[in-house]
């Protein structure tokens, strides 16, 4: 009786151990597949696009023939310009919003309503944000297809991400810091401005740069707001902000790199295909740079702060 029982246990033990080994093997295989997909995708895009990227003129010439010839200079500029305007609107608003939610908002209906609103905004498909932007900014406010219209749409898309990141960063500041500030007679506002935000700065900066990567690659919200074309000629030296050829004029149409890809991906000519892949590689490299920069800057800031 006793021996048989031990026997059964051993069989069971073997089975269980085998199960464990199989499971580990399957999981390892899944991870290997995932890594293979990621690496091969990045490699494929770089492989297809890198030769175009280093072609003379690709980064320094404007597009011709509706984007099927020439380079992507204006698209590259427009992408960064859109990003710059988007961040300069969304960062202050998100910072204020996050500070309010973490430091001021008493637990209660105001906080609930605000966080529900932000959560709703974050889950909305970007095409809906684009439609709203088209209706309100492009049509009703009469901004037509313009950089500013696109930037405001991107702001709506960016705010929930930023608020969450900054909120998290502020919440991670130890409560003792706050108590110490208040005990020394500082107001909440002073404590936030001089102690809490600097303390949370590394995380905030990392978050902003990471969100910049997402904004940089967004296209659906821009189709109907900043439009699908860039002026054929731009003058970077002109600061006459009402001139349609002035690169810095926010009321001119603009086209980001991502929109450019969507516009010409179906064009059949070999040259257009090269441009598409070159643009894709460029876009991906920019976004990856944002990732790397975010990490480095975050680390640098953190180190400098702890050294002090």
């Amino acid at each position: 009786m006793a021996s048989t029982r031990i026997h059964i246990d051993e069989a069971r033990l073997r089975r269980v151990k085998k199960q464990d080994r199989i499971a580990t093997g399957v999981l390892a295989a899944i991870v290997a597949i995932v890594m293979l997909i990621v690496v091969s995708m990045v490699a494929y895009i770089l492989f297809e696009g890198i030769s175009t990227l280093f072609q003379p003129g690709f980064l320094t010439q404007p597009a011709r023939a509706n984007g099927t010839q020439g380079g992507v200079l204006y698209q590259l500029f427009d992408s960064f310009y859109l990003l710059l305007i988007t961040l300069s609107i969304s960062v202050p608003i998100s910072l204020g919003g996050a500070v309010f939610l973490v430091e001021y908002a008493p637990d209660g209906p105001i906080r609930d309503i605000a966080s529900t609103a932000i959560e709703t905004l974050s889950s909305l498909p970007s095409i809906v944000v684009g439609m709203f932007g088209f209706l309100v900014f492009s049509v009703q406010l009469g901004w037509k297809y313009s950089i500013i219209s696109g930037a405001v749409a991107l702001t709506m898309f960016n705010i929930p991400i930023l608020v969450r990141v900054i909120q998290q960063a502020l919440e991670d500041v130890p409560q003792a810091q706050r108590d110490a500030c208040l005990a020394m007679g500082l107001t909440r506002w002073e404590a936030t401005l001089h102690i809490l935000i600097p303390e949370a700065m590394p995380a905030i900066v990392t978050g902003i740069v990471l969100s910049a990567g997402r904004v940089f690659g967004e296209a659906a919200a821009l189709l109907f707001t900043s439009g699908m074309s860039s002026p054929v000629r731009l003058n970077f030296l002109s600061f006459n902000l009402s001139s349609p050829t002035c690169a810095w004029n926010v009321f001119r149409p603009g086209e980001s790199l991502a929109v450019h890809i969507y516009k010409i991906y179906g064009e059949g000519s070999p040259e257009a295909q090269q441009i598409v892949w070159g643009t894709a590689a460029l876009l991906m490299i920019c976004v990856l740079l944002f990732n790397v920069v975010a990490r480095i800057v975050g680390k640098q800031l953190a180190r400098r702060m702890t050294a002090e």
Partner: protein
Amino acid sequence: MAKQLPKRDLENVGLGVTGACVALVTLVVAALIFMVAQKGLSAFLKDGVSVVEFFTGTKWDLANTAENGLPYTGALPLIVTSFAVMVLSTLIALPIAIGSAIFAVEISPKFGSKVFQPLIELLTGIPSVVFGLVGFHVVVGLMKSVFHVSTGLGILPGAIVLAVMILPTMTTLSVDGLRAVPDSYRLGSLALGYTRWQTIWHVVLKSAMPSLMTAVILGMTRAFGETLAVRMVIGGIEAMPTSLLSPASTITTTLTTSMAVYAEGSAQDDVLWALGLLLMGMSLIFILIIHLIGRKGAKARG
């Protein structure tokens, strides 16, 4: 006393400035919801499109008008395709996401945090048009050569592209969920003589269930709302899909191609806003589900 007053003012300034930011965001969201709802509902209230026809009709054709003077507005094919693409991509991504999360947390944590997670986050950063471009050239070509179909466009390639796109969201959130399970659970289970797999299966996964479900639903939300990557591989035919490899069109892809084609205020334009309203409604439902799961999870933990 004289010194205290400016301090109080300062506090009020701070409260005012930050409060204004929150108020602005809340107001914009409220305006957005209101406008989308108003434009969307006017299709039914003003133009007289039948709600039943919208949800059950199978003929979507805005360019032609039926006898009643309205365009054909049966959105069922679009709704079905949207759901098909979402469910299929989730089914593909789910085992891969949770499997790799388990590996990265339970089996090889060091490899997980040093190599695997940064790599997966890299995938998050790649813009959706780039996914679409790779899908258009690689996945569609693959469909053509494997299934011997004419165009290679349809729901299946759409779902495959989306699965890769939602993989990072689902994996990262699953990893966070698994990490949050206290080590004492694992140690207790191992001490009872369970193998690692048994511990994972019976203890870790069970207690991480609410966060895993949240991960899945957030992935589904993204899949449902994704637009351009799907547009590039799905074919764009607004008709009931007959197979996984027949060209189809989702709610979002129809919006990209038809929006701004029709004059503002026309029945066609309003019906498109009704689609937008449907998208918005779905994402609100997804949020609600996540909240319910969160509340349930909190209750279960006590």
